[in-house]
């Protein structure tokens, strides 16, 4: 069917709204000169600036926080996915639906909810004090930001793993059990290996938004967190140095694309993911 011409309007759209903007960012990152086309000078200074220990520290901090939250969501999410996948169809559909509903609530509201829970006068401390404990310092620190990330991204880890687990052929498990394998062996030899594609998808869908978030660190971090997303936001909306901001963006993009390429190698069944949203 000669239908390719139908796609041309979109290709035009893509060029204007996807390619040109990214090209502009690239140009900004490689130049200085107050954004005025007339005084462009090509330079690698913006990228060199990023090599300053302060900024490398920011990058490192973002990556390590993202890795931690990915690990936590994996450890918490995998068992959850397993438990739900083992239920009968009706029950597990209901459970997954319930699991997903919070995800559909506005992302900012979910993060705001933790603001009200974790504050010094928040609900959690209120309960603790009532029970006779000392109030804890639960907000504006690493833990709070980690918690915020885990809370927001947990469903993104559970869903891919769950959807892979339910597709595992039950007869494989039965056969293994018939051959004498204990529950542990069935898990490590059959279930886990088959669930790896789901794990990979889950990891990608959590790690990428986690590394680039700036809202969670803004709201729950108390102004003390400069993650790489915050850095970009600050350069564009605070300091006004679009050149440096663009350089950081390019670095982020490259980093993410490399990560995606690596995980794509593991994952033949490209689900395309839906990450990069928060």
């Amino acid at each position, binding site marked *: 069917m000669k239908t390719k011409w139908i796609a041309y309007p979109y290709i035009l759209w893509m060029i204007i709204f996807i390619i040109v903007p990214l090209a502009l960012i690239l140009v900004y990152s490689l130049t200085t000169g107050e954004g005025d086309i007339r005084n462009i000078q090509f330079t690698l200074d913006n990228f060199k600036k990023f090599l300053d220990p*302060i900024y490398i520290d920011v990058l490192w*901090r973002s990556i390590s926080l993202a890795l931690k939250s990915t690990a936590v969501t994996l450890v918490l999410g995998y068992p959850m996915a397993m438990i739900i996948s083992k239920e009968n169809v009706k029950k597990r559909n209901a459970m997954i639906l319930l699991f997903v509903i919070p995800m559909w609530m506005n992302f900012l509201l979910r993060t705001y909810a933790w603001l009200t829970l974790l504050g010094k006068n928040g609900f959690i401390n209120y309960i603790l004090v009532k029970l006779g404990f000392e109030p804890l310092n639960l907000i504006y620190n690493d833990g709070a930001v980690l918690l915020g990330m885990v809370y927001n991204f947990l469903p993104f880890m559970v869903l891919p793993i769950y959807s892979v687990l339910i597709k595992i052929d039950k007869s494989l498990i039965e056969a293994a059990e018939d051959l004498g394998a204990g529950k542990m062996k069935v898990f490590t030899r059959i279930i886990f290996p088959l669930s790896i594609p789901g794990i990979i998808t889950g990891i990608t869908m959590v790690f990428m938004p986690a590394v680039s978030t700036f809202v969670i660190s803004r709201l729950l971090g*108390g*102004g003390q967190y400069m993650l790489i997303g915050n850095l970009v936001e600050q350069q564009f909306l*605070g300091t006004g140095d679009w050149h440096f901001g663009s350089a950081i963006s390019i670095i982020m993009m490259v980093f993410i694309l490399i990560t995606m390429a690596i995980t794509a190698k593991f994952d033949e069944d490209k689900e395309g993911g839906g990450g990069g949203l928060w």
Partner: protein
Amino acid sequence: MIKNIRNIGIMVFILIIGLIFTGCEDKKPTINVYNWGDYIDPSVIKDFEKEFNVKVNYNTFATNEDMYVSIKKGGTSYDVAFPSDYMIERMINEGMLEKINKENIPNLKYIEDRFLDLEFDPNNDYSVPYMWGTFGIIYNKNMVSEKVDSWDILWDEKYKDQILMLDSQRDSIAVALKKLGYSMNSRNIDELEEAKEELIKQKPLVYAYVGDEVKDMMVGEEAALAVVWSGDAVAMIRENDNLEYVIPKEGSNLWFDNMVIPKTSKNKELAEQFINFMNRPEIAARNTDYIGYSTPNYKAMELLPEDIINSKVAYPTDEEIGDVEIFKDPKDIIKVYDEIWLEIKTQR
């Protein structure tokens, strides 16, 4: 098929209604106002809209620097903005502001002389006073045992995680400079580096760097000490009388927020009418009362209650105010400020 057509029809219908609504908004003249958060009595905006039959798009910013970048980057034609002294100086020097036609702002006559013709805008060619104040330390009497009279107390280990600092680079660096005994307009790199070191030292003791949330937090007694602007202090003390405001002995900052018309404005006359409106005594009094800040409008002051006028927080005498400096535009040194602030923020 019929069902599909009907469904599409419904959607198109909704689309058209939607577009009509968006179209409707633009019938009235609009004015884009760009102000600090929590810095106006919302009913004042409504009154302006009603009286002049216009629509006001009211937007807020958190710091002068945010506002500057937003206006500089362009793409939004703000008609009225409310920068502070040093930022006005910068904007005038960079040609970002329109000259104000004082004939359109007769209510200027209600402004006290001492707020006019200041260094940052000689002759008030570009700006009209809105509010003024100081900054200092607000503390909770029940949580702080010693006398609070110096910036030093914000570095006291005893108050770890009980200290709130302003999430504003100019103000926080100024606090450090003052603590060290330097001018808050220092252009001396060594002095600035020292200030940076102080703030880095302080960071582990700071509970959070906050903006408008400070009011809620201090009233809710979530922290013992905070750096705040005088107007916010008035508002907070109103809600929780365990709080006290003090201007430290090393000195503080005297600031002025004025109304300006950025060059990007599309409706200069309406902007001037807005500025004039804000200086009507009753309007200025309403704003002052709502947000707690200090008005430069002497006619408005006559409408305020006794206890506010005598408040040393809101209207300190020369003696009570102590040694104050007005911020000046750091010009090229702003880059140093940016770097310092970034380094402080990225510390673990």
